[in-house]
């Protein structure tokens, strides 16, 4: 996908970089370096994929949500994720790939989605953990991306962050209810926290090597903060939520370092993240197969809609 190199007019490139460095944003239809377009597309497409795949673990719990208000709120939450996919695929389209193509890329395993959505949601407590911690992690990266240099992306990120903020609040309500609940409910929540800890650390990616590529992404503001910076931002906010409710982080090495104002943590197994990235996570194959299955089952509907559009035009 990104193996062909782009040779750009150095003068144009310098002018582009100067504009981005000055905080200017890039709009659809404006000139941009080929590599910028390609990297922006790759990032936004993966983000869109993650929203639509991110609907899958939680949607399994919609039919089982234990009260009417939880049922409505969870349905609305998953709906928001699907809606985010709609917004993000549209932004990705402005960079030159059609949504039809991107859906095909996803279900045929040619494009990626975020590591956390390759894991199972085993109990109702997973819903709480996903809504508080997975969404909380996403909020760190998405919040930073509101100042992305690609203007259409930055714009939709504002709406997405606004909605994610509801999700975290709703999630905290589920979380607190379980935390204040029976021993069984607390055990369920501790179990979910334990299972999700490593995927949450993985969420932000490996600590950045100082590679020319990373440097360029940061310079172009397609990446706004480093992986470790975002991970620390997350830990500062969310470790207390675990500990103050009397739950344990499954990492005996975890400690707050006053001097550096950072959390020290045991290095997770990065090989696992790489495997998950190759769609070899515990739920990768099953979820992609399910998407493929629905895609096949909806073929006649898509054809009918397309035909209707031609008749109506």
């Amino acid at each position, binding site marked *: 996908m990104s193996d062909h190199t782009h040779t750009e007019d150095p003068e144009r490139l310098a002018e582009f970089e100067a504009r981005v460095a000055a905080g200017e944003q890039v709009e659809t239809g404006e000139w941009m370096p080929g590599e910028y377009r390609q990297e922006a597309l790759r990032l936004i497409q993966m983000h869109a994929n993650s929203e639509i795949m991110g609907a899958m673990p939680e949607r399994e719990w919609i039919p089982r949500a234990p009260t009417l208000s939880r049922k409505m709120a969870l349905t609305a939450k998953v709906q928001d994720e699907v809606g985010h996919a709609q917004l993000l695929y549209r932004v990705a389209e402005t960079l030159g790939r059609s949504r039809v193509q991107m859906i095909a890329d996803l279900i045929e395993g040619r494009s990626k989605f975020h590591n956390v959505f390759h894991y199972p949601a085993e109990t109702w407590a997973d819903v709480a953990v996903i809504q508080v911690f997975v969404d909380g992690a996403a909020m760190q990266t998405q919040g930073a991306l509101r100042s992305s240099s690609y203007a259409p992306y930055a714009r939709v990120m504002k709406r997405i962050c606004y909605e994610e903020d509801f999700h975290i609040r709703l999630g905290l309500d589920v979380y607190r209810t379980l935390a204040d609940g029976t021993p069984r409910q607390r055990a369920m929540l501790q179990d979910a926290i334990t299972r999700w800890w490593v995927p949450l650390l993985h969420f932000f990616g490996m600590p950045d090597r100082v590679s020319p590529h990373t440097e360029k992404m940061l310079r172009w503001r397609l990446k706004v903060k480093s992986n470790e910076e975002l991970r620390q931002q997350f830990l500062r906010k969310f470790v207390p939520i675990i500990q103050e409710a009397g739950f344990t982080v499954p990492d005996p090495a975890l400690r707050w370092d006053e001097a550096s104002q950072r959390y020290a943590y045991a290095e997770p197994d990065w090989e696992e993240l790489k495997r998950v990235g190759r769609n070899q996570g515990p739920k990768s194959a099953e979820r992609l197969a399910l998407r493929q299955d629905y895609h096949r089952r909806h073929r006649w509907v898509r054809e009918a809609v397309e035909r*209707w*559009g031609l008749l109506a035009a």
Partner: protein
Amino acid sequence: MGPARRLSALEQDVWAVFRQATKHDPHVYVGDVHASDPEMALLLAKEQYARRDPCVNLWVVRYSQIFATDYGDADMFRPATDRSFRFGGSHRDQQRVYREAGRRRDDEE
């Protein structure tokens, strides 16, 4: 100004959505939907763009029918000379006289 640029001639099924929050507000562009036809585009736009925000009316416009200026021409919107005469901003004393005239009469009533 350069020639009007058609935003997209290819995306037959993409519609730009404009939402009017109240009858006092103009329709504002809020995003796009994919849909086969205008009726479906309006139905789908309602839930994607007005399920939380207030709305009294929606427009959808086929992308291929939108024409735009070029960002390369953005500088022509930026004034090169003093345009304050268009705003009345240089007549601050008069503005104060005008505002206070109204207030005095309101007080008398």
